[in-house]
């Protein structure tokens, strides 16, 4: 079995964020409205956190398929501003895999663990 997940990247943009809003029915203006986002601590629209999580799941699926028994435990650790590129991946550890999604500057936006064939 592989020691590293197949890495996948995604460059976010406004059209993609609008499509994800429709997909998830999450129309929070923080993701979609630049004027509203400018009034928040983020200063500009941020991508849906679940979009980054989905990218991680795509990387897990690209690496292992859908065997069943996958247990994922993650934290959202930083926002992704719309326009930023993110990459999902992970490395084997003694307990399973350390998984992450990070921006090009190295900032991790998701961190967590993946166990395969486990009872969560």
């Amino acid at each position: 079995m592989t020691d590293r997940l197949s890495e996948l990247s995604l460059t976010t943009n406004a059209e993609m964020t609008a499509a994800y809003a429709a997909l998830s029915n999450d129309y929070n203006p923080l993701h979609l409205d630049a004027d509203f986002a400018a009034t928040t601590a983020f200063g500009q629209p941020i991508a849906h956190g679940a979009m980054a999580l989905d990218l991680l799941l795509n990387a897990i699926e690209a690496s292992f398929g859908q065997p069943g028994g996958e247990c994922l435990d993650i934290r959202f650790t930083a926002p992704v501003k719309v326009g930023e590129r993110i990459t999902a991946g992970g490395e084997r550890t003694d307990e399973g895999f350390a998984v992450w999604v990070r921006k090009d500057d190295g900032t991790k936006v998701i961190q967590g663990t993946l166990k395969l064939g486990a009872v969560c």
Partner: protein
Amino acid sequence: MPQDDHKGDLWTYERFQPGHVFGVIPIQTDAGKRADWGRVFGPTSDRLPRGMLVTAMMEAYIRAIQPRPDGNVHASQELAFTEAQANWGDTVLVTVSLVAKEERKGRYWVRFGIEAHVGDAQVMTGTIRSIWAA
């Protein structure tokens, strides 16, 4: 049948009761959702991506708990997937419940439970841990 005297009221931390089931929300993974998924992540086979189960979970979580305050933070997530497969076109039934709540350092931590089924098969379980805004 018990009457919900709070129907239509904002869901606040105070109202949350561990064990409460907010509802079972049907999410249809129809052609429109498949097209939206493709616009974000690219085309897939007929098998439903795991990520789409998570997206369905998020939609159900948002739809089940309304109205809600602005500014809630999705802090962390646990997910467990079964061997059962789902395909595009399936309806995913997502049960959303309240597992636990805890006020700590002035923040309202809430743990929501998620169970997703396709037909009789459980496809995913999980918990959403949020910092509730009010």
